[in-house]
């Protein structure tokens, strides 16, 4: 797949921001299908720990990824405030568990600073940039690239 296009386009526009632990992340709002509470999931055998399982979203089987586990942020509690963002990526539907959804913000490419290169858990390839809004730092993630990446193991290798 070619992501150069998405990278370019997603650089400015509206972003949905959510919190994971103490950090704030932003994703392209056009990729978001809906936001819902966390339900019981059905575990999938032999899946990585950050894949919580699958849920029934109105007849569609949707895998759920806990980004807190994926990003090693801890605090894996699931209560009535835990939120699942249902994403529509390509032709697939998938959900990510986050601590909370905060805002929809407008970011232009001028407001985006490149992320410094250092060995974080989150590969900088998946970071479009760092945005600043009222003293808050928002990590803008290329969610499509992240979710379809190999290490997420959300897809068959051939796809």
């Amino acid at each position, binding site marked *: 797949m070619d992501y150069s296009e998405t990278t370019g386009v997603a650089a400015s526009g509206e972003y949905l921001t959510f919190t994971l632990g103490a950090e704030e992340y932003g994703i392209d709002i056009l990729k978001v299908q809906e936001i819902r509470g966390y339900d019981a999931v059905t575990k999938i055998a032999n899946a990585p720990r950050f894949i919580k399982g699958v849920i029934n979203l109105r007849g569609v*089987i949707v895998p759920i990824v806990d980004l807190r586990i994926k990003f090693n942020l801890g605090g894996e509690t699931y209560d009535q405030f835990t939120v699942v963002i249902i994403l529509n990526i390509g032709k*697939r539907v*998938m959900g990510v568990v986050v601590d909370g959804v905060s805002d929809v913000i407008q970011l232009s490419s001028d407001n985006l600073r490149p992320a410094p290169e250092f060995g974080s858990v989150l590969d900088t390839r998946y970071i479009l940039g760092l945005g600043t809004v009222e003293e808050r730092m928002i990590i803008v993630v290329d969610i499509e690239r992240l979710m379809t990446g190999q290490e997420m193991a959300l897809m068959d290798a051939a796809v």
Partner: protein
Amino acid sequence: MSQFYQVFFEETSEHLASMENLLLNLDVNDPSLEDLNAIFRAAHSIKGGSGTFGFTDMTSVTHVLESLLDRLRKEEIPLLAEMVDAFLEAGDILRAQLEHHQGGPEAEADVIASVCARLNQLAVGEAAESQEQDTPTETTTSAPVRKIRLSCELPANQSQVAESVDNLLEGLRDIAALEVKQRPDGTDGHLIAVLTTQACDSELKDALAFYCAPEDIAIQPEVEEEAYGFFDDLGDSSATDTADIGYGFFDDLPDQTPSVVPVSSADDDGFGLFDDAPGAPAASDAPSGQLAEVAPGDSPAAIEGIGYGIYVNAPGGLGLFDDAPGAEKILQNSAPPPFSGKTAAAFVEGVGGAASSAQATQKPSQADVGRRLPDNPSIETAKSGRRDNDKTVTAANTDTSIRVAVEKVDQLINLVGELVITQAMLAEAASNLDPVLAEKILAGIDLLSRNTRDMQESVMSIRMLPMSMVFSRFPRVVRDLAGKLNKQVEMKTIGDNTELDKGLIEKITDPLTHLVRNSLDHGIETPDKRIAAGKNPKGTLTLKASHQGGNVVIEVMDDGGGLNRARILEKAKEKGLAVSDSMTDFDVWQLIFAPGFSTADVVTDVSGRGVGMDVVKRNIEGLGGRVELESSPGFGTRTVIRLPLTLAILDGMSVGVGGETFIVPITTVIESLQPRLEDIRTLAGDSRMVHIRGEYLPLISLAEAFGLDGEADITKGLLVVVEAEEGKAALFVDELLGQQQVVIKSLEANYRKVPGLSGATIMGDGRVAMIIDVSAVTRMGLSQVKQRLAA
């Protein structure tokens, strides 16, 4: 127009398929006229359709095809095996052309040309022969039908409209065999036609009543055949005749020259009749003029020129020829190959010789009439019969079936699937109600569940297609391959009406084709080998489909030499596969499913490359089915494919493991039981086996296999004994929850394939449950056992 393309494509494919089917079932020695007519109809419909949509390449091929078929169904020429071959090839070409119009690759022009040439040759090559044969039968033609000449004057407003004339002629054709001698047009409303009919005058007048006044219609017995012999049915075959006479010129006989004069005069006389018919005079002028020119040249090409000359120079004539079956004859007769050299001479002798005699004007015509007369009643009655048939067939089709896009059906199936889930949800919610207080609700829910089940079944049956959809293509494959391999093979199909999901039907075709090819190539021996083995030189290949429980079983059987155990083992060793001489037959046969495995000495274009059986197996397993082989040396091989009835719904047993629900396909379940501790044995220290009625089965804990915290105490759980491809196994689960029909949802749609699971479903409470892939789990369990044994 383009919105009808799809309909045309579909219809044409159907016509092609039915044509092929009929051809394959045709008994060459005694073809049934009905079948020939049906084949002709199919070709004719394709021609008509392709003409309408402007696919001229298809029209021209069908045209040639139709000409030969037409002669066959008129019994002018006998059916030969090579004709059937040529027809089948033509069918292939048409299919290729059809695909091309649908965006596929272009059909190869030289192949088309060669097949067309062959068809022409067959049609014409036989023409000379049949002509001689048929002439004597002239006397037998005095059928109860009478031949009459009908002439009438159409009012200008009728004759100017081509459609109206067409309708009129069509109406007449329904009651009579029609030869239009003069077609009315804008300038001249005179219609002259020769009818061969059993209808009386008043019936004919009735047929025309809509178009013209009865007093304008003149009906008289047709007499002038003698005088105007070959022109009596210009629309039909005057061109043929002209061509025939033309060949008289090229006869090497010494009396060639005298023939010129009478023939030309015949031309003039004959065509004189049509002087006021536009087009016709042109036609008459052209050939006579050209005949004279061509005569000295003696070249087939020139002859061709004449044949076409009639077409080209007579635009009016084209219209005339369009409806006439005879039009094709012109093409055939003018096609160059048969007339070159000796064939031409031979062909000419009958007609040309006659033409050269003193009564040249009449003789050839008699010969011609003689040849045509016997045909006319039969053809034309057949033709009108065909019309009736066509009508009833179309009427029946429109009444009993509709074309619906598959997506619509799938959508319906999905919706019903949701309904089933909702119903299950309701049933579950209601199960807590007090049966006394909520009697009515519970009764309603019972009814609902019955109705949903019925509904689901009937909706699913929409997608079901009979196996004959797949089987019908094999007679052709077998026929072609058997011919190529010089083997004699008879194909039988059993259980054509067994129904299978459309999706499965589509996907099973390729693997089955492969198995059939394999059977033919490797299984069935050559006739001499078979005779030496004391068998019927004709091998038998049987395709059988049947229902067995929730499965459809498809078998491919041959009575060939069977698999060679020693050969397979030897090859397997060569390839470095782990084998031993003491393996069971079953295991040895499984070896041929290994990738790249082939015992064939010679790689042919039929098979032998060793790709295939592994693909067959993979494809079938991908469909949730399995393949088994049985073989006995000298007696044949049987390949058994087991497939689930449908890919969408499954009868499952729900089991609980570590708080999760799993579905075990009920077709794999043999029994469930509570294990006793003393039945549990260990193998090599820790692999557990369970002893059930004398059998030791590997015990697979689902909790372990799926990494869940299940019941550890074996006596508190339950064992579900399942049978998979690899054999039986006992699955250890915490509890049995129930049995229900579940709608299979793909895990891959949004996630990926999970080893050990074949999909997921949504339970009555809205939760997701995983469907266990029993073979995979068994394999996982067995491989664990093997690993431990190896370690």
